Protein backbone atom coordinates (compact mmCIF):
# COMPACT_ATOMS: atom_id res chain seq x y z
CA UNK A 1 0.00 0.00 0.00
CA UNK A 2 1.33 3.40 -0.89
CA UNK A 3 -0.86 5.77 0.94
CA UNK A 4 0.79 7.62 3.77
CA UNK A 5 0.90 11.22 4.84
CA UNK A 6 3.31 11.96 1.98
CA UNK A 7 0.52 11.33 -0.54
CA UNK A 8 -2.13 13.25 1.34
CA UNK A 9 -2.86 16.30 -0.81
CA UNK A 10 -4.15 18.38 2.07
CA UNK A 11 -0.95 17.72 4.01
CA UNK A 12 1.06 18.63 0.91
CA UNK A 13 -0.70 21.96 0.52
CA UNK A 14 -0.14 22.78 4.18
CA UNK A 15 3.57 21.99 3.89
CA UNK A 16 3.89 24.07 0.71
CA UNK A 17 2.09 27.10 2.11
CA UNK A 18 3.90 26.96 5.46
CA UNK A 19 7.23 26.60 3.69
CA UNK A 20 6.76 29.67 1.51
CA UNK A 21 5.35 31.68 4.41
CA UNK A 22 8.43 30.87 6.50
CA UNK A 23 10.73 31.72 3.59
CA UNK A 24 9.32 35.25 3.65
CA UNK A 25 11.00 35.86 7.01
CA UNK A 26 14.44 34.81 5.85
CA UNK A 27 15.71 38.31 4.84
CA UNK A 28 14.48 39.77 8.12
CA UNK A 29 16.29 37.12 10.11
CA UNK A 30 19.59 37.25 8.21
CA UNK A 31 19.53 41.05 7.91
CA UNK A 32 22.43 41.24 5.46
CA UNK A 33 22.02 42.61 1.95
CA UNK A 34 24.67 40.42 0.37
CA UNK A 35 23.21 37.20 1.77
CA UNK A 36 19.67 38.31 0.96
CA UNK A 37 20.72 38.78 -2.65
CA UNK A 38 22.38 35.35 -2.61
CA UNK A 39 19.20 33.76 -1.29
CA UNK A 40 17.13 35.56 -3.89
CA UNK A 41 19.37 33.94 -6.51
CA UNK A 42 18.70 30.56 -4.94
CA UNK A 43 14.97 31.20 -5.24
CA UNK A 44 15.39 31.76 -8.96
CA UNK A 45 17.49 28.63 -9.35
CA UNK A 46 14.78 26.82 -7.40
CA UNK A 47 12.32 27.99 -10.03
CA UNK A 48 14.47 26.36 -12.71
CA UNK A 49 14.48 23.08 -10.78
CA UNK A 50 10.70 23.49 -10.55
CA UNK A 51 10.42 23.67 -14.32
CA UNK A 52 12.60 20.55 -14.63
CA UNK A 53 10.45 18.73 -12.09
CA UNK A 54 7.36 19.49 -14.14
CA UNK A 55 8.72 18.51 -17.52
CA UNK A 56 10.95 15.61 -16.50
CA UNK A 57 9.60 14.32 -13.20
CA UNK A 58 5.94 14.53 -14.12
CA UNK A 59 6.07 14.70 -17.91
CA UNK A 60 8.85 12.15 -18.39
CA UNK A 61 10.51 14.48 -20.88
CA UNK A 62 14.21 14.75 -20.12
CA UNK A 63 14.79 18.26 -21.42
CA UNK A 64 18.34 19.51 -21.29
CA UNK A 65 17.16 22.70 -22.94
CA UNK A 66 15.50 24.53 -20.06
CA UNK A 67 18.37 26.99 -20.28
CA UNK A 68 17.04 28.12 -23.67
CA UNK A 69 13.94 29.62 -22.10
CA UNK A 70 15.93 30.94 -19.17
CA UNK A 71 18.60 32.47 -21.40
CA UNK A 72 16.24 34.03 -23.94
CA UNK A 73 14.19 35.58 -21.16
CA UNK A 74 17.34 36.77 -19.41
CA UNK A 75 18.49 38.48 -22.60
CA UNK A 76 15.06 40.03 -23.01
CA UNK A 77 15.20 41.39 -19.50
CA UNK A 78 18.81 42.50 -19.92
CA UNK A 79 17.84 44.41 -23.05
CA UNK A 80 14.88 45.98 -21.27
CA UNK A 81 17.00 47.18 -18.37
CA UNK A 82 19.76 48.33 -20.69
CA UNK A 83 17.32 50.49 -22.64
CA UNK A 84 16.08 52.05 -19.41
CA UNK A 85 19.52 53.65 -19.17
CA UNK A 86 19.52 54.88 -22.76
CA UNK A 87 18.01 58.12 -23.94
CA UNK A 88 16.40 58.51 -27.38
CA UNK A 89 18.04 61.95 -27.79
CA UNK A 90 21.42 61.91 -26.06
CA UNK A 91 22.44 58.24 -26.14
CA UNK A 92 20.14 56.08 -28.27
CA UNK A 93 22.59 53.17 -28.58
CA UNK A 94 24.18 51.01 -25.85
CA UNK A 95 27.92 51.60 -25.72
CA UNK A 96 28.92 48.02 -26.60
CA UNK A 97 27.17 48.49 -29.94
CA UNK A 98 29.25 51.56 -30.66
CA UNK A 99 32.44 49.61 -30.10
CA UNK A 100 31.02 47.05 -32.53
CA UNK A 101 30.54 49.82 -35.07
CA UNK A 102 26.77 49.92 -35.09
CA UNK A 103 25.41 53.38 -35.81
CA UNK A 104 21.76 52.66 -35.38
CA UNK A 105 19.84 50.66 -32.77
CA UNK A 106 19.02 47.26 -34.35
CA UNK A 107 15.34 46.63 -35.04
CA UNK A 108 15.49 43.66 -32.66
CA UNK A 109 16.18 46.09 -29.83
CA UNK A 110 13.55 48.70 -30.63
CA UNK A 111 10.63 47.18 -28.66
CA UNK A 112 12.74 47.19 -25.49
CA UNK A 113 12.54 50.96 -25.12
CA UNK A 114 9.20 50.32 -23.51
CA UNK A 115 9.65 48.40 -20.24
CA UNK A 116 6.28 46.58 -20.05
CA UNK A 117 6.63 45.47 -23.69
CA UNK A 118 10.17 44.33 -22.97
CA UNK A 119 9.15 42.20 -19.99
CA UNK A 120 6.19 40.72 -21.84
CA UNK A 121 8.44 39.83 -24.78
CA UNK A 122 11.02 38.36 -22.43
CA UNK A 123 8.35 35.96 -21.17
CA UNK A 124 6.44 35.44 -24.39
CA UNK A 125 9.23 34.79 -26.90
CA UNK A 126 10.75 31.81 -25.01
CA UNK A 127 7.31 30.40 -24.30
CA UNK A 128 6.27 30.57 -27.94
CA UNK A 129 9.65 29.15 -28.90
CA UNK A 130 9.04 26.18 -26.60
CA UNK A 131 5.60 25.74 -28.11
CA UNK A 132 6.96 25.57 -31.66
CA UNK A 133 10.06 23.56 -30.74
CA UNK A 134 7.91 21.15 -28.70
CA UNK A 135 5.42 20.76 -31.54
CA UNK A 136 8.23 19.90 -33.95
CA UNK A 137 9.74 17.36 -31.56
CA UNK A 138 6.67 15.64 -30.20
CA UNK A 139 4.62 15.50 -33.37
CA UNK A 140 7.55 13.64 -34.89
CA UNK A 141 7.30 11.31 -31.88
CA UNK A 142 10.80 12.08 -30.66
CA UNK A 143 11.03 10.39 -27.27
CA UNK A 144 13.32 9.18 -24.52
CA UNK A 145 16.99 9.93 -24.81
CA UNK A 146 16.48 11.55 -28.22
CA UNK A 147 14.64 14.40 -26.54
CA UNK A 148 17.73 15.00 -24.41
CA UNK A 149 19.92 15.04 -27.50
CA UNK A 150 17.68 17.31 -29.56
CA UNK A 151 17.17 19.82 -26.73
CA UNK A 152 20.89 19.83 -26.02
CA UNK A 153 21.69 20.50 -29.66
CA UNK A 154 19.18 23.34 -29.73
CA UNK A 155 20.68 24.81 -26.57
CA UNK A 156 24.15 24.73 -28.08
CA UNK A 157 22.87 26.48 -31.17
CA UNK A 158 21.44 29.32 -29.07
CA UNK A 159 24.64 29.51 -27.06
CA UNK A 160 26.73 29.96 -30.19
CA UNK A 161 24.33 32.54 -31.46
CA UNK A 162 24.48 34.61 -28.27
CA UNK A 163 28.24 34.30 -28.39
CA UNK A 164 28.71 35.15 -32.06
CA UNK A 165 26.22 37.93 -32.58
CA UNK A 166 28.51 40.35 -30.79
CA UNK A 167 26.96 43.61 -32.08
CA UNK A 168 23.53 42.56 -30.82
CA UNK A 169 24.35 40.62 -27.66
CA UNK A 170 27.76 41.95 -26.60
CA UNK A 171 29.00 38.39 -27.15
CA UNK A 172 31.14 36.85 -24.46
CA UNK A 173 31.03 39.95 -22.26
CA UNK A 174 27.28 39.94 -21.96
CA UNK A 175 25.02 42.85 -21.21
CA UNK A 176 25.39 44.63 -17.89
CA UNK A 177 22.70 47.29 -17.52
CA UNK A 178 24.22 50.23 -15.61
CA UNK A 179 21.30 50.63 -13.24
CA UNK A 180 18.76 48.38 -11.50
CA UNK A 181 15.27 47.72 -12.83
CA UNK A 182 12.90 50.68 -12.72
CA UNK A 183 9.18 49.99 -12.58
CA UNK A 184 7.67 53.38 -13.27
CA UNK A 185 9.34 55.66 -10.74
CA UNK A 186 10.16 52.81 -8.46
CA UNK A 187 13.65 51.28 -8.41
CA UNK A 188 14.02 47.61 -7.52
CA UNK A 189 17.35 47.41 -5.71
CA UNK A 190 18.74 43.89 -6.33
CA UNK A 191 20.14 43.83 -2.80
CA UNK A 192 16.90 44.81 -1.11
CA UNK A 193 14.47 42.62 0.78
CA UNK A 194 11.94 43.70 -1.80
CA UNK A 195 13.82 41.98 -4.64
CA UNK A 196 13.93 38.83 -2.54
CA UNK A 197 10.22 39.03 -1.86
CA UNK A 198 9.39 39.56 -5.52
CA UNK A 199 11.37 36.43 -6.36
CA UNK A 200 9.74 34.52 -3.51
CA UNK A 201 6.27 35.72 -4.50
CA UNK A 202 6.81 34.57 -8.07
CA UNK A 203 8.24 31.24 -6.98
CA UNK A 204 5.27 30.72 -4.67
CA UNK A 205 2.79 31.53 -7.42
CA UNK A 206 4.57 29.30 -9.91
CA UNK A 207 4.83 26.39 -7.50
CA UNK A 208 1.27 26.51 -6.24
CA UNK A 209 0.03 27.09 -9.78
CA UNK A 210 1.87 24.03 -11.03
CA UNK A 211 0.71 22.01 -8.04
CA UNK A 212 -2.87 22.84 -8.90
CA UNK A 213 -2.20 22.08 -12.55
CA UNK A 214 -0.83 18.67 -11.63
CA UNK A 215 -3.95 17.91 -9.62
CA UNK A 216 -6.12 18.59 -12.65
CA UNK A 217 -7.04 15.99 -15.21
CA UNK A 218 -4.31 17.50 -17.38
CA UNK A 219 -1.74 16.69 -14.71
CA UNK A 220 -2.97 13.13 -14.50
CA UNK A 221 -2.82 12.57 -18.24
CA UNK A 222 0.65 14.10 -18.45
CA UNK A 223 1.78 11.47 -15.94
CA UNK A 224 -0.11 8.76 -17.78
CA UNK A 225 1.74 9.74 -20.95
CA UNK A 226 5.01 9.49 -19.03
CA UNK A 227 4.12 5.98 -17.88
CA UNK A 228 2.91 4.63 -21.22
CA UNK A 229 2.38 6.92 -24.20
CA UNK A 230 0.84 4.21 -26.34
CA UNK A 231 -1.75 3.33 -23.70
CA UNK A 232 -2.65 6.98 -23.37
CA UNK A 233 -3.03 7.23 -27.12
CA UNK A 234 -5.41 4.28 -27.06
CA UNK A 235 -7.54 6.05 -24.51
CA UNK A 236 -8.05 8.74 -27.15
CA UNK A 237 -5.62 11.36 -25.89
CA UNK A 238 -3.32 13.15 -28.26
CA UNK A 239 0.02 12.24 -26.69
CA UNK A 240 1.93 14.96 -28.50
CA UNK A 241 -0.69 17.53 -27.47
CA UNK A 242 -0.04 16.83 -23.79
CA UNK A 243 3.72 16.73 -24.26
CA UNK A 244 3.73 20.02 -26.13
CA UNK A 245 1.55 21.63 -23.47
CA UNK A 246 3.65 20.51 -20.52
CA UNK A 247 6.88 21.40 -22.32
CA UNK A 248 5.54 24.88 -23.07
CA UNK A 249 4.44 25.48 -19.49
CA UNK A 250 7.87 24.40 -18.26
CA UNK A 251 9.41 26.82 -20.76
CA UNK A 252 7.29 29.62 -19.37
CA UNK A 253 8.40 28.88 -15.82
CA UNK A 254 12.06 28.82 -16.87
CA UNK A 255 11.50 32.12 -18.71
CA UNK A 256 10.05 33.66 -15.57
CA UNK A 257 13.20 32.57 -13.78
CA UNK A 258 15.31 34.24 -16.49
CA UNK A 259 13.51 37.56 -16.06
CA UNK A 260 13.87 37.45 -12.26
CA UNK A 261 17.51 36.43 -12.51
CA UNK A 262 18.50 39.56 -14.41
CA UNK A 263 16.45 41.71 -12.06
CA UNK A 264 18.55 40.26 -9.23
CA UNK A 265 22.02 40.05 -10.77
CA UNK A 266 21.76 42.96 -13.23
CA UNK A 267 23.76 41.04 -15.81
CA UNK A 268 23.26 38.52 -18.60
CA UNK A 269 25.84 36.63 -20.65
CA UNK A 270 26.05 33.45 -22.76
CA UNK A 271 26.75 31.50 -19.55
CA UNK A 272 22.98 31.44 -19.08
CA UNK A 273 22.85 29.29 -22.23
CA UNK A 274 25.74 27.04 -21.26
CA UNK A 275 25.25 23.29 -21.38
CA UNK A 276 26.65 22.75 -17.88
CA UNK A 277 24.06 25.13 -16.47
CA UNK A 278 21.10 23.31 -18.02
CA UNK A 279 22.51 19.94 -16.99
CA UNK A 280 22.94 21.27 -13.45
CA UNK A 281 19.25 22.13 -13.26
CA UNK A 282 18.45 18.51 -13.98
CA UNK A 283 20.83 17.43 -11.23
CA UNK A 284 19.27 19.79 -8.67
CA UNK A 285 15.85 18.37 -9.45
CA UNK A 286 17.18 14.80 -9.25
CA UNK A 287 18.86 15.41 -5.92
CA UNK A 288 15.79 16.98 -4.34
CA UNK A 289 13.34 14.63 -6.01
CA UNK A 290 12.04 15.22 -9.49
CA UNK A 291 8.61 13.82 -8.66
CA UNK A 292 8.09 16.49 -6.02
CA UNK A 293 7.86 20.17 -6.94
CA UNK A 294 9.02 21.30 -3.52
CA UNK A 295 11.63 18.56 -3.42
CA UNK A 296 13.17 19.82 -6.66
CA UNK A 297 13.24 23.40 -5.34
CA UNK A 298 14.95 22.26 -2.15
CA UNK A 299 17.41 20.27 -4.25
CA UNK A 300 18.39 23.49 -5.99
CA UNK A 301 18.80 25.30 -2.64
CA UNK A 302 20.83 22.43 -1.25
CA UNK A 303 23.26 21.97 -4.14
CA UNK A 304 23.72 25.68 -4.75
CA UNK A 305 24.06 26.32 -1.03
CA UNK A 306 26.96 23.89 -0.83
CA UNK A 307 28.43 25.25 -4.04
CA UNK A 308 28.53 28.84 -2.82
CA UNK A 309 29.77 27.74 0.60
CA UNK A 310 32.71 26.01 -1.02
CA UNK A 311 33.39 29.04 -3.20
CA UNK A 312 34.62 29.47 -6.74
CA UNK A 313 38.10 27.99 -6.31
CA UNK A 314 36.56 24.59 -5.71
CA UNK A 315 34.13 24.90 -8.63
CA UNK A 316 35.56 22.29 -10.98
CA UNK A 317 36.14 19.80 -8.23
CA UNK A 318 32.60 20.44 -7.16
CA UNK A 319 31.18 19.78 -10.61
CA UNK A 320 32.93 16.43 -10.51
CA UNK A 321 31.39 15.66 -7.14
CA UNK A 322 28.02 16.81 -8.44
CA UNK A 323 28.26 14.45 -11.41
CA UNK A 324 29.08 11.58 -9.06
CA UNK A 325 26.22 12.54 -6.78
CA UNK A 326 23.87 12.52 -9.77
CA UNK A 327 24.88 9.00 -10.75
CA UNK A 328 24.46 7.78 -7.17
CA UNK A 329 21.05 9.38 -6.86
CA UNK A 330 19.79 8.03 -10.15
CA UNK A 331 21.06 4.58 -9.20
CA UNK A 332 20.07 4.36 -5.54
CA UNK A 333 17.58 7.11 -4.83
CA UNK A 334 15.53 7.68 -7.99
CA UNK A 335 13.05 9.90 -6.16
CA UNK A 336 15.78 12.00 -4.52
CA UNK A 337 15.60 13.41 -1.02
CA UNK A 338 11.83 13.73 -1.25
CA UNK A 339 11.72 10.01 -1.94
CA UNK A 340 13.69 9.45 1.24
CA UNK A 341 11.02 11.31 3.18
CA UNK A 342 8.35 9.30 1.41
CA UNK A 343 9.81 5.96 2.48
CA UNK A 344 10.41 7.29 5.99
CA UNK A 345 6.75 8.20 6.35
CA UNK A 346 5.88 4.88 4.77
CA UNK A 347 7.79 3.08 7.51
CA UNK A 348 6.07 5.15 10.20
CA UNK A 349 2.70 4.04 8.86
CA UNK A 350 3.74 0.43 8.37
CA UNK A 351 5.22 -0.13 11.81
CA UNK A 352 2.09 0.46 13.93
CA UNK A 353 0.01 -1.37 11.35
CA UNK A 354 2.29 -4.40 11.48
CA UNK A 355 2.16 -4.48 15.25
CA UNK A 356 -1.57 -4.41 15.19
CA UNK A 357 -1.49 -7.29 12.77
CA UNK A 358 0.46 -9.50 15.15
Amino acid at each position, binding site marked *: *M*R*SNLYHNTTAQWIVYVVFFALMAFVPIVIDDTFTTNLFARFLVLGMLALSVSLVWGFGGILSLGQGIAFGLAAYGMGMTMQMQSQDPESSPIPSFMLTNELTKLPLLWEPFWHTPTGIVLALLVPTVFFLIFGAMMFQARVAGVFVAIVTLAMLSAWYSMAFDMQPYTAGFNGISPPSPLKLGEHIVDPYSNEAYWIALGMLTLATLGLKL*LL*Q*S*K*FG*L*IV*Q*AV*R*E*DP*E*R*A*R*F*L*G*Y*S*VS*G*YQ*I*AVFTVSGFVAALAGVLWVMIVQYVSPTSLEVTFSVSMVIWAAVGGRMSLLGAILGAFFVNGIQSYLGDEMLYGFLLVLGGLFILIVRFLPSGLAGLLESLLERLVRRPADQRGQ
Partner: protein
Amino acid sequence: MMALLELHQVTKAYDELKVVDGFDLKVHRGELRCLLGPNGAGKTTTIDLITGRQKLSGGQVSLDGTVISDWPEHMRVRAGLARKFQIPAVFKGLTVRQNLEAAFTRHLSPIRNMFVFRDRETQDRIDEVASLVNLKDRLRVRADELSHGETQWLEIGMVLTQNARILLMDEPTAGMTTQETHKTGEIFNGLKGTHTLLVVEHDMSFVRQIADRVTVMHMGRFLAEGTIQDIERNEEVQRVYLGQGGAGHHA
Protein backbone atom coordinates in the same frame (compact mmCIF):
# COMPACT_ATOMS: atom_id res chain seq x y z
CA MET B 1 -29.15 -4.48 -39.83
CA MET B 2 -25.85 -2.72 -40.37
CA ALA B 3 -22.93 -4.15 -38.42
CA LEU B 4 -21.33 -1.92 -35.83
CA LEU B 5 -17.85 -3.05 -36.81
CA GLU B 6 -17.14 -4.30 -40.28
CA LEU B 7 -13.89 -5.61 -41.73
CA HIS B 8 -13.83 -5.93 -45.48
CA GLN B 9 -11.02 -7.88 -47.18
CA VAL B 10 -8.60 -6.68 -44.51
CA THR B 11 -5.02 -7.53 -45.41
CA LYS B 12 -1.63 -7.03 -43.81
CA ALA B 13 1.50 -8.08 -45.62
CA TYR B 14 5.13 -7.96 -44.57
CA ASP B 15 6.92 -8.11 -47.91
CA GLU B 16 5.64 -11.37 -49.39
CA LEU B 17 4.19 -12.73 -46.16
CA LYS B 18 0.51 -12.03 -45.65
CA VAL B 19 -0.18 -12.31 -41.92
CA VAL B 20 -3.77 -11.22 -42.40
CA ASP B 21 -5.19 -12.12 -45.77
CA GLY B 22 -8.52 -10.84 -47.08
CA PHE B 23 -10.22 -11.18 -43.72
CA ASP B 24 -13.93 -10.32 -43.40
CA LEU B 25 -15.76 -9.85 -40.12
CA LYS B 26 -19.03 -8.29 -39.02
CA VAL B 27 -19.80 -7.61 -35.37
CA HIS B 28 -23.28 -6.41 -34.55
CA ARG B 29 -24.43 -4.11 -31.81
CA GLY B 30 -24.77 -5.81 -28.42
CA GLU B 31 -22.96 -8.92 -29.59
CA LEU B 32 -20.11 -10.70 -27.83
CA ARG B 33 -17.91 -12.19 -30.53
CA CYS B 34 -14.97 -14.45 -29.86
CA LEU B 35 -12.06 -14.52 -32.24
CA LEU B 36 -10.20 -17.78 -32.08
CA GLY B 37 -7.11 -19.06 -33.81
CA PRO B 38 -3.82 -20.82 -33.16
CA ASN B 39 -0.64 -18.91 -32.30
CA GLY B 40 0.38 -16.60 -35.08
CA ALA B 41 -3.01 -16.76 -36.78
CA GLY B 42 -3.07 -12.98 -37.01
CA LYS B 43 -5.54 -12.14 -34.25
CA THR B 44 -3.50 -9.43 -32.57
CA THR B 45 -2.56 -8.05 -35.97
CA THR B 46 -6.26 -7.85 -36.84
CA ILE B 47 -6.92 -5.86 -33.66
CA ASP B 48 -3.94 -3.66 -34.52
CA LEU B 49 -5.42 -3.01 -37.94
CA ILE B 50 -8.81 -2.14 -36.47
CA THR B 51 -7.33 0.30 -33.96
CA GLY B 52 -4.75 1.76 -36.31
CA ARG B 53 -1.69 0.58 -34.45
CA GLN B 54 -0.62 -0.98 -37.75
CA LYS B 55 -1.35 0.21 -41.26
CA LEU B 56 -3.51 -1.82 -43.61
CA SER B 57 -1.98 -3.22 -46.78
CA GLY B 58 -5.45 -3.61 -48.25
CA GLY B 59 -9.16 -3.67 -47.50
CA GLN B 60 -11.03 -1.43 -45.12
CA VAL B 61 -12.43 -1.15 -41.62
CA SER B 62 -15.67 0.65 -40.87
CA LEU B 63 -17.37 1.59 -37.66
CA ASP B 64 -21.10 2.09 -37.85
CA GLY B 65 -20.87 2.56 -41.61
CA THR B 66 -18.02 5.08 -41.53
CA VAL B 67 -14.71 3.99 -43.00
CA ILE B 68 -12.11 4.62 -40.30
CA SER B 69 -9.13 2.74 -41.67
CA ASP B 70 -7.16 5.83 -42.63
CA TRP B 71 -7.73 7.71 -39.39
CA PRO B 72 -4.99 8.09 -36.75
CA GLU B 73 -5.32 5.96 -33.62
CA HIS B 74 -6.66 8.55 -31.23
CA MET B 75 -9.36 9.58 -33.70
CA ARG B 76 -10.55 5.98 -33.97
CA VAL B 77 -10.69 5.77 -30.20
CA ARG B 78 -12.72 8.95 -30.12
CA ALA B 79 -15.07 7.39 -32.66
CA GLY B 80 -15.75 4.61 -30.16
CA LEU B 81 -13.07 1.93 -30.15
CA ALA B 82 -11.55 0.77 -26.88
CA ARG B 83 -8.79 -1.77 -26.64
CA LYS B 84 -7.20 -4.07 -24.11
CA PHE B 85 -3.71 -5.12 -25.08
CA GLN B 86 -2.46 -8.72 -25.15
CA ILE B 87 0.39 -7.76 -22.85
CA PRO B 88 -1.51 -5.85 -20.17
CA ALA B 89 -0.87 -2.14 -20.52
CA VAL B 90 -1.68 -0.05 -17.48
CA PHE B 91 0.02 3.04 -16.07
CA LYS B 92 2.29 1.25 -13.61
CA GLY B 93 3.47 4.26 -11.63
CA LEU B 94 -0.07 5.48 -10.99
CA THR B 95 -2.64 4.17 -8.53
CA VAL B 96 -5.57 2.02 -9.58
CA ARG B 97 -7.84 5.00 -9.04
CA GLN B 98 -5.67 7.23 -11.22
CA ASN B 99 -5.60 4.58 -13.95
CA LEU B 100 -9.38 4.45 -14.05
CA GLU B 101 -9.62 8.21 -13.83
CA ALA B 102 -7.33 8.57 -16.83
CA ALA B 103 -9.58 6.19 -18.75
CA PHE B 104 -12.65 8.28 -17.94
CA THR B 105 -12.35 10.38 -21.05
CA ARG B 106 -15.08 12.95 -20.88
CA HIS B 107 -12.76 15.63 -22.23
CA LEU B 108 -9.67 14.95 -24.25
CA SER B 109 -8.16 18.35 -24.97
CA PRO B 110 -5.08 19.27 -22.91
CA ILE B 111 -6.18 22.86 -22.43
CA ARG B 112 -9.69 21.88 -21.44
CA ASN B 113 -8.41 19.31 -18.97
CA MET B 114 -6.31 21.91 -17.18
CA PHE B 115 -9.58 23.08 -15.67
CA VAL B 116 -11.08 19.68 -14.93
CA PHE B 117 -10.78 18.41 -11.38
CA ARG B 118 -12.06 15.30 -9.64
CA ASP B 119 -15.81 15.49 -9.36
CA ARG B 120 -18.65 13.34 -8.11
CA GLU B 121 -19.52 12.00 -11.56
CA THR B 122 -15.97 10.73 -12.11
CA GLN B 123 -15.80 9.22 -8.64
CA ASP B 124 -19.11 7.44 -9.06
CA ARG B 125 -18.08 5.99 -12.39
CA ILE B 126 -14.74 4.84 -10.98
CA ASP B 127 -16.37 3.22 -7.96
CA GLU B 128 -18.91 1.49 -10.16
CA VAL B 129 -16.28 0.05 -12.51
CA ALA B 130 -13.92 -0.81 -9.64
CA SER B 131 -16.52 -2.98 -7.95
CA LEU B 132 -17.38 -4.59 -11.28
CA VAL B 133 -13.76 -5.72 -11.78
CA ASN B 134 -13.13 -6.59 -8.11
CA LEU B 135 -10.72 -3.74 -7.42
CA LYS B 136 -12.83 -1.75 -5.03
CA ASP B 137 -10.43 -2.33 -2.12
CA ARG B 138 -7.37 -1.73 -4.25
CA LEU B 139 -8.06 1.79 -5.50
CA ARG B 140 -5.19 3.37 -3.57
CA VAL B 141 -2.62 0.79 -4.59
CA ARG B 142 -0.06 1.54 -7.25
CA ALA B 143 -0.69 -0.51 -10.38
CA ASP B 144 2.78 -2.06 -10.30
CA GLU B 145 1.88 -3.73 -7.01
CA LEU B 146 -1.08 -5.62 -8.46
CA SER B 147 -1.02 -9.34 -9.21
CA HIS B 148 -1.10 -10.40 -12.84
CA GLY B 149 -4.80 -11.18 -12.74
CA GLU B 150 -5.60 -7.89 -11.03
CA THR B 151 -3.60 -6.04 -13.66
CA GLN B 152 -5.74 -7.68 -16.35
CA TRP B 153 -8.87 -6.63 -14.46
CA LEU B 154 -7.59 -3.12 -14.15
CA GLU B 155 -7.11 -2.88 -17.87
CA ILE B 156 -10.54 -4.39 -18.48
CA GLY B 157 -11.85 -1.78 -16.04
CA MET B 158 -10.12 0.98 -17.97
CA VAL B 159 -11.67 -0.22 -21.21
CA LEU B 160 -15.08 -0.23 -19.52
CA THR B 161 -14.61 3.23 -18.03
CA GLN B 162 -14.01 4.58 -21.49
CA ASN B 163 -17.68 4.12 -22.42
CA ALA B 164 -16.71 3.01 -25.89
CA ARG B 165 -19.03 1.63 -28.54
CA ILE B 166 -17.02 -1.51 -29.13
CA LEU B 167 -14.58 -3.16 -26.74
CA LEU B 168 -11.67 -5.06 -28.26
CA MET B 169 -10.15 -7.48 -25.77
CA ASP B 170 -6.93 -9.25 -26.69
CA GLU B 171 -6.60 -12.32 -24.44
CA PRO B 172 -8.16 -10.81 -21.32
CA THR B 173 -7.60 -13.94 -19.21
CA ALA B 174 -3.96 -14.63 -20.09
CA GLY B 175 -2.06 -15.46 -16.92
CA MET B 176 -5.17 -15.67 -14.74
CA THR B 177 -5.92 -18.48 -12.30
CA THR B 178 -8.92 -20.71 -13.09
CA GLN B 179 -10.98 -18.87 -10.50
CA GLU B 180 -10.00 -15.46 -11.85
CA THR B 181 -10.81 -16.62 -15.37
CA HIS B 182 -14.25 -17.76 -14.26
CA LYS B 183 -14.86 -14.47 -12.50
CA THR B 184 -13.83 -12.63 -15.68
CA GLY B 185 -16.32 -14.73 -17.60
CA GLU B 186 -19.04 -13.53 -15.24
CA ILE B 187 -17.99 -9.93 -15.80
CA PHE B 188 -18.19 -10.40 -19.57
CA ASN B 189 -21.55 -12.13 -19.40
CA GLY B 190 -22.81 -9.16 -17.42
CA LEU B 191 -21.82 -6.86 -20.28
CA LYS B 192 -23.78 -8.74 -22.94
CA GLY B 193 -26.56 -6.84 -24.57
CA THR B 194 -25.47 -3.44 -23.29
CA HIS B 195 -21.95 -3.63 -24.72
CA THR B 196 -20.44 -4.84 -27.96
CA LEU B 197 -17.32 -6.92 -27.56
CA LEU B 198 -14.75 -8.62 -29.73
CA VAL B 199 -12.74 -11.00 -27.57
CA VAL B 200 -9.57 -12.78 -28.68
CA GLU B 201 -9.13 -15.90 -26.58
CA HIS B 202 -7.24 -19.15 -26.29
CA ASP B 203 -8.85 -20.59 -23.19
CA MET B 204 -11.65 -22.86 -24.44
CA SER B 205 -13.47 -23.19 -21.14
CA PHE B 206 -13.60 -19.40 -20.99
CA VAL B 207 -14.87 -19.22 -24.56
CA ARG B 208 -17.59 -21.77 -23.70
CA GLN B 209 -18.57 -19.67 -20.72
CA ILE B 210 -19.02 -16.41 -22.63
CA ALA B 211 -19.38 -16.93 -26.38
CA ASP B 212 -22.46 -16.18 -28.46
CA ARG B 213 -20.76 -16.54 -31.80
CA VAL B 214 -17.22 -17.58 -32.55
CA THR B 215 -15.09 -16.72 -35.55
CA VAL B 216 -11.98 -18.78 -36.23
CA MET B 217 -9.04 -17.54 -38.24
CA HIS B 218 -6.03 -19.46 -39.42
CA MET B 219 -2.92 -18.17 -41.14
CA GLY B 220 -4.54 -14.80 -41.56
CA ARG B 221 -7.65 -16.16 -43.25
CA PHE B 222 -11.23 -16.72 -42.25
CA LEU B 223 -11.74 -20.37 -41.37
CA ALA B 224 -15.15 -20.80 -39.77
CA GLU B 225 -17.92 -19.04 -37.90
CA GLY B 226 -20.80 -20.24 -35.77
CA THR B 227 -21.89 -21.11 -32.26
CA ILE B 228 -19.36 -22.68 -29.95
CA GLN B 229 -20.96 -26.09 -30.57
CA ASP B 230 -20.68 -25.65 -34.36
CA ILE B 231 -17.05 -24.67 -34.00
CA GLU B 232 -16.15 -27.54 -31.72
CA ARG B 233 -17.77 -29.95 -34.18
CA ASN B 234 -16.15 -28.39 -37.26
CA GLU B 235 -13.53 -30.80 -38.60
CA GLU B 236 -11.32 -28.20 -40.19
CA VAL B 237 -11.18 -26.27 -36.95
CA GLN B 238 -10.35 -29.42 -35.04
CA ARG B 239 -7.55 -30.11 -37.45
CA VAL B 240 -5.83 -26.70 -37.25
CA TYR B 241 -6.65 -25.60 -33.80
CA LEU B 242 -8.33 -27.80 -31.28
CA GLY B 243 -6.22 -30.75 -32.32
CA GLN B 244 -3.05 -28.95 -31.33
CA GLY B 245 -3.45 -28.59 -27.64
CA GLY B 246 -6.85 -30.15 -27.15
CA ALA B 247 -9.57 -27.90 -25.89
CA GLY B 248 -7.62 -26.75 -22.91
CA HIS B 249 -5.23 -23.95 -22.13
CA HIS B 250 -3.07 -22.88 -24.93
CA ALA B 251 -0.10 -20.57 -24.61
